């Protein structure tokens, strides 16, 4: 009961802060701004900010957070969140630093022994590594019970390792399937047919023949994590697994090999752009936006990018759907991220409160223009749906159907080995089956370390 009261108090504080922040937001994005007021009241039942009963005012100390540039919440918005939080807690100072995704991992590692940061932004593939190596703190005890039911599982997974929480879920993302509706129409393809990978292959052939697109499919298959994302989701949608329940390699048969064979075949058949093997996510956006591809997989940000007339020549033609099925379901890959408290932080309480604040339903709804919330209830909120009516319903379904990449300590090393093996198969230097057989002992060696 007392907890409920304190929540109410906090909520009032939050609403005040939200109103304050919305002024800045209105200028930036009108849809997000209008959503703020209504969501504040309708989302009350979510009790998103509940949990710790510590009143905010006794909180004091200074923390430094390391965040990601370029995607998710913008630098300005994170600074606004920090400002509102500091208004709530006058004795708290929040410093924020921002680096590109590419530099994030190394920055965290280099700074860890010195304890530069209290709060760090981590990718879904890092909890196992950082937790085992003692870089980030176990905060299982702090996570409120309602989070386990109110937050989408994919978001929770971004902070979980071996059943323990090493961070707070913050950003939810997955790969989606995009197609150019004009090109599909031109080729006489029924959009309903691109709900399975076989349908995609057939549609691609039609687009190639009838719509004059040389390579209808483009993918991010460069030697990078991106290729593993695509392969992992296809493996899952073909009913396979990269690793079994015991964490041992399972990619030498079943869905994993089928997925790889499908990928290779699409290159051989001339429906996949051969430059895919050097492309990252950004290249997929560019090729698709230039009208040189009809279909592709990408993270949620592509929906806005490909439909932005400033960057794209196909604005208004990009349609987002769930990932096609290979027989086992329309399963995507989890690309979420979390905020972790570092093991060396001297102000873990402040870091925790700030992380909890920025991942609360209210703040996430307030900045809906930047990212979709981690909270289940948000996806039924008309104000949220209104921000992107074509996208939010798709996201709601897809976020409930995602596969995780293996949570192993040596994930980066394992992933590098797999990237090379997958690329060898894609370039045709060995067969998919052979590539998987060859890399298995190497991966086993890494897992044994």
């Amino acid at each position: 009961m007392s907890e409920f009261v304190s929540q109410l108090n906090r909520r009032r504080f939050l609403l005040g802060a939200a109103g304050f922040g919305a002024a800045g937001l209105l200028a930036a994005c009108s849809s997000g701004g209008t959503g703020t007021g209504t969501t504040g009241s309708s989302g009350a039942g979510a009790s998103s900010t509940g949990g710790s009963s510590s009143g905010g005012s006794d909180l004091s100390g200074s923390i430094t957070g390391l965040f990601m540039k370029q995607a998710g919440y913008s630098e300005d918005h994170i600074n606004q969140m920090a400002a509102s939080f500091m208004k709530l807690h006058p004795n708290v100072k929040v410093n924020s630093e921002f680096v590109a995704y590419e530099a994030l991992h190394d920055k965290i590692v280099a700074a860890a022994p010195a304890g530069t940061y209290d709060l760090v932004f981590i990718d879904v593939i890092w909890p196992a590594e950082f937790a085992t190596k003692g870089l980030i703190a176990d905060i299982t005890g702090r996570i409120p019970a309602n989070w386990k039911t109110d937050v989408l599982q994919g978001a929770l997974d971004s902070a979980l390792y071996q059943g323990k929480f090493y961070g707070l879920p913050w950003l939810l993302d997955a790969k989606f399937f995009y197609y150019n509706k004009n090109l599909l129409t031109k080729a006489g393809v029924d959009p309903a047919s691109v709900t399975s990978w076989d349908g995609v292959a057939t549609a691609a052939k039609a687009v190639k023949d009838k719509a004059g697109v040389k390579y209808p499919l483009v993918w991010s298959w460069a030697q990078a994590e991106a290729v593993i994302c695509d392969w992992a989701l296809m493996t899952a949608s073909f009913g396979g697994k990269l690793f079994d329940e015991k964490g041992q390699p399972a990619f030498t048969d079943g869905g994993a090999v089928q997925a790889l064979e499908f990928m290779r075949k699409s290159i051989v058949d001339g429906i996949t752009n051969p430059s895919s093997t050097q492309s990252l996510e950004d290249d997929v956006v560019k090729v698709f936006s230039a009208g040189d591809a009809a279909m592709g997989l990408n993270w949620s940000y592509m929906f806005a990018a490909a439909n932005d007339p400033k960057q794209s020549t196909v604005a208004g033609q990009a349609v987002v759907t769930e990932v096609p099925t290979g027989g086992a379901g329309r399963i995507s890959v989890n690309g979420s991220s979390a905020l972790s408290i570092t093991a060396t932080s001297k102000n873990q309480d402040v870091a925790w409160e700030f992380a909890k604040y920025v991942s609360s339903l209210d703040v996430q709804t307030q900045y809906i223009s930047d990212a979709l919330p981690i909270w289940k209830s948000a996806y039924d909120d008309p104000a949220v749906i209104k921000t992107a009516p074509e996208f939010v319903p798709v996201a709601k379904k897809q976020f409930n159907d995602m596969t995780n990449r293996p949570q192993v300590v040596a994930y980066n090393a394992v992933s590098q080995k797999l990237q090379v093996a997958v690329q060898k198969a894609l370039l045709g230097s060995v067969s998919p089956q052979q590539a998987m057989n060859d890399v298995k002992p190497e991966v086993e060696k890494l897992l044994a370390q």
Partner: protein
Amino acid sequence: MTDSTAPTTQSRAGAPASANPSHGPAGPRKASYPKRFRHTYGSSRRSGGLAALLLLPAAVVVFGLVTYPVLRTVWLSFNRVLSPMPTAPVQMVGFQNFINAFTDSDLIAATGHTIYFTLVSTAAEIVFGVLLGQLMAQKLRFRWLLRAAILMPWALPTVVSASMWRYLLNADYGPINALLTQLGIIGSYRSWLGTPTSAMNMIIIADVWKNTSIAAFFVLAGLAVIPNELREAASVDGAGAVRRFFSITLPLLRPVIMVVLVLRTIEAFKVFDIVYVMTRGGPSNGTQTVAVYAYQTAFSNQNFGYGSAIALLIVVVVLLLAVAYIRMLSTGGTSDGGR
């Protein structure tokens, strides 16, 4: 008084060297001089104390900051350390990291790529550098423009030039494909970074485009200290331009070429930025170099012991190469290079 140095310069230039210009001039300048003067001038007194005093500031600047990190790297290389945290478990493994390095097929492949990159890029940079250095030394009507143009690529940070080349060579919207197609040189857009061999050669082109400038400017500086009388004398003798170049200019440029060769070899063997930005070591590890591999091992994979061992091996290889070059080029075939 005023004349005291000028004749010296000339006497050095015109010295016994001109009798046998093919290797003579380089010999006295690099090796024989120190040797000879050790008897006449240098032998007057040992100056270890003064030398130490003069080297002290440099030593403080150089070793003040890096001694501990280097010692730590050496220590790490004999241990198995999988976390940067001071509290992390450490396991002494002796030479195991080094032994592993010699049987690590990925590292061996990366070494092959690095050697190929180093040989081809350094050779190309030296050859183009010597030619462009000569060209820049000419009396040309728009020489400043030529010099500025040759400098430009060098002034562009590697991160930028590598991103630029990645874009220029893009298989879908790259301007190089557009240009070559529109000129009718290639029939359709090509995937320049699509195969390991092609990607490696493209990285070399990008590297040569950027770093030839250094070689060219060092050669230009080297030409500046070559006494003109030598070349003029040869020219009066009626030696052809090509022969003059090979028999006089090139040997005189030897010290400068050595500097460039050593610097570029060191940089090339450590090559990281340009590969990381252009291909990240792909496709299928075809452009992975030892520095990229060391980076992945030490940072991405947090295998600090093994990563340190690889880094030390890089230092050893580069050091051996540098010593070999210095000996080879400074002796010029006449002296034993006893420095």
